[in-house]
């Protein structure tokens, strides 16, 4: 690597301002992607500074590097395998003691390290006396004070990065584990050193420590080596669980001995946060405040976004009309207008929703309230086989399932996250409402509100039952243990909110957009071919498919027109209404459609009910399928979600229709 290029990895506990520091250093030169093979988000960025090209990689926030979670494995593997020039650990100056635990583990990785003592202003404000010089001396590494949110200490940090890069030596300081463990470390190290390839790749002491710590991940790493069986024999003769505890003790013992020298008068109380929490998580006020905040966020997202949604819809409508007028031949106009512009437009109309939602979510998260929300609702969610962090995605699902599924990223445990993603499509999103309004309004005019309410309730019920079911079958087991830090309350910054909104929003546009574009074209082709038929008519492929699947849907009371509409509904569920309009030959006229439906001898209240139930539950729309694939990283789970939805929808609609027919 050229000498003016420096690779820097950012590490640190969650909630220490790591993302803020990353943003301050790299500005707009960022790239967001995934770590290879896993769904953990990878952020990297560049900074040109004093003639150096500094590449900054933002590692996932972790409390430790013991490979408890995917995040920890990703962070650790990057440092060990990719060997960045410098590792910066961001340490929360108000919580040094716990942050140092990660430091003790990072030091063993053998990289050059710098501590960025972030938010030191907050520590000083509350009266802590930090001895930074002593800290440098004890840890034998540079310590730079920063206030990332105010851009303080950043150039000093970058200067330190450059000077560290030029140094040859490594940090010598490390934890001593006591005679007994040290002798075992030496023994294992000696065996490991026989494999020269291993020795050139990893620091051997670190490997030995990790093995004694019962790290399965490392055991896998050395499984191909000639010394693997010898190592296994040594480990088998030891009580690894005992060693693990002893080593953690030693690390904390070290910290306990050194910490008072670094911080002479450190407060251990978070007075302001505690005062806020006396209200926010109060026995009586906690839940009403939580509900009010959630309702507020929800209301703001969907009412504030609705004028913007109308604008986006109008733009696409106008584009479609323009295509119809100005583009020849007609089939191309139709492909562009009805196919691509129509399909993409229906998805783009959710963009205002998604942007506002992620902005608010970011404010809630950065303020520290999101952790409290999980704390408050965990008990209820645990009962249905999920956990506290599943609640917010479920709530968002009522608006649109796409951002809801994206929001499940905050759930660390993969099983918990999968279960949440799988049940989310049953939460009735806003796009399904037009179907209910049409059919409940037409066939249950007096009780329309009650009927729609019951449909929503049914969605929740199916979601809850499915969660329970999944937890006893495919995703067997209890929800992961709930061990969650409640970080101090902080004032969120608008800047971070906007960045978060932009990152997630643009990802939605990019990823969902491509799949939807493809899906729209396929649906259009099916509706427009064979050559010369009227778009979406009985003779088009989709009409033919509608006819051929009609026997399957007949037991639910659906004729071919409804079957075709449901196929169209795959693009976006509100299209069911629009395509019924086309099939009944009334266009977009709501009242005309109501009259036609009432006049149709095949349609009556039981059919309407069955159709509403089916629309609620049948496979997620194409945007949701796209996002499920992206977030689960698995076609198998995506296929499961589609199949499961179809089966549940069919069964329940069957019960409604056949049961209803018996009662009449």
């Amino acid at each position, binding site marked *: 690597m050229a000498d003016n290029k420096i690779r820097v990895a950012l590490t640190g506990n969650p909630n220490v301002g790591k993302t803020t520091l990353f943003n301050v250093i790299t500005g707009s030169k960022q790239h967001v992607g995934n770590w290879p093979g896993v769904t953990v988000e990878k952020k990297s960025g560049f900074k040109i500074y004093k003639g150096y090209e500094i590449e900054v990689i933002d590692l996932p926030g972790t409390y430790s590097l013991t490979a408890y979670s995917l995040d920890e494995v990703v962070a650790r593997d990057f440092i060990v395998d990719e060997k960045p020039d410098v590792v910066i650990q961001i340490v929360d100056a108000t919580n040094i003691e716990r942050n140092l635990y990660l430091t003790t583990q990072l030091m063993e990785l053998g990289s050059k390290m710098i501590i960025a003592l972030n938010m030191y202003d907050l520590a000083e404000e509350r009266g802590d006396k930090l001895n930074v010089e002593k800290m440098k001396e004890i840890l034998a590494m540079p310590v730079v004070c920063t206030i990332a949110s105010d851009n303080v200490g950043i150039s000093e940090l970058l200067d330190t990065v450059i000077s560290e890069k030029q140094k040859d030596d490594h940090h010598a300081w490390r934890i001593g584990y006591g005679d007994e463990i040290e002798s075992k470390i030496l023994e294992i190290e000696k065996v490991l050193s026989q494999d020269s390839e291993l020795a050139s790749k990893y620091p051997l002491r670190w490997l030995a420590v990790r093995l004694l710590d019962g790290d399965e991940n490392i055991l896998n790493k050395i499984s191909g080596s000639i010394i693997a069986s010898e190592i296994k024999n040594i480990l088998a003769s030891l009580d690894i669980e005992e060693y693990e505890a002893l080593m953690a003790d030693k690390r904390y013992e070290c910290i306990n001995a050194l910490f008072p020298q670094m911080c002479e008068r450190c407060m251990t109380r978070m007075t302001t946060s505690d005062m806020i929490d006396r209200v926010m998580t109060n026995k009586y006020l906690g839940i009403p405040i939580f509900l009010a905040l959630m309702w507020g966020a929800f209301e703001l997202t969907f009412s504030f976004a609705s004028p913007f949604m109308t604008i986006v819809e109008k733009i696409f409508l106008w584009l479609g009309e323009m295509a119809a007028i100005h583009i020849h031949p007609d089939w191309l106009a139709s492909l562009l207008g009805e196919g691509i512009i129509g399909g993409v437009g229906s998805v783009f109309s959710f963009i205002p929703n998604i942007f506002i939602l992620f902005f608010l979510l970011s404010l809630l998260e950065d303020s520290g309230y999101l952790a409290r929300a999980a704390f408050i609702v965990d008990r209820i969610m645990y009962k249905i086989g999920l956990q506290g962090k599943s609640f917010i995605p479920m709530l968002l699902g009522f608006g649109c399932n796409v951002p809801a599924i994206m929001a499940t990223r905050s759930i660390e445990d993969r099983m918990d996250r999968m279960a949440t993603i799988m049940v989310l499509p049953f939460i009735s999103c806003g796009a399904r409402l037009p179907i209910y309004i049409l059919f409940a309004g037409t066939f249950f005019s007096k009780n329309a509100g009650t009927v729609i309410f019951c449909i929503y309730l049914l969605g929740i019920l199916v979601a809850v039952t499915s969660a329970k079911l999944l937890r006893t079958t495919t995703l067997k087991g209890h929800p992961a243990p709930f061990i*969650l830090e409640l970080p101090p309350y902080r004032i969120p910054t608008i800047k971070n909110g906007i960045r978060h909104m932009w990152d997630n929003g643009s990802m939605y546009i990019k990823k969902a957009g491509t799949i939807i574009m493809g899906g729209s074209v396929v649906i259009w082709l099916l509706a427009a071919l064979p050559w010369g038929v009227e778009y979406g008519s009985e003779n088009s492929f989709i009409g033919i498919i509608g006819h051929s699947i009609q026997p399957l849907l007949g037991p639910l009371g659906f004729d071919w027109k409804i079957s075709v509409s449901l196929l169209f509904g795959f693009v976006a569920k509100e299209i069911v209404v629009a395509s019924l309009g086309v099939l009944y030959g009334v266009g977009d006229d709501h009242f005309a459609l109501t009259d036609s439906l009432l006049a149709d001898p095949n349609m009556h209240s039981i059919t309407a009910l069955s159709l509403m139930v089916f629309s609620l539950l049948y496979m997620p729309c194409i945007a949701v399928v796209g996002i499920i694939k992206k977030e689960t990283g698995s076609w198998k789970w995506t296929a499961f979600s589609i199949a499961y939805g179809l089966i549940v929808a069919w069964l329940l609609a069957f019960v409604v229709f056949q049961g209803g027919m018996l009662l009449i």
Partner: protein
Amino acid sequence: MVESTLNDLRPGEKARIVKVLAKGTVRRKLMDMGMVPGSEVEVVRTAPLGDPIEFRIKGYSLSMRKQEAANIVVETIA
């Protein structure tokens, strides 16, 4: 000094951790978060529905369910 488990303490009570009975990943996670023998813990409050519980340890707030707390043996301190 009375030995009990962490889930039995009431808000405001302080204790010192004697032993962590949890196994596997839960044990590791607890250790990572500072729940190791010798550490001082204070019960801050329970969630509005009675579970989980919020603790103060090493100067920060940590919450966990009662079932996790039941695996931590403590001795109460005044």
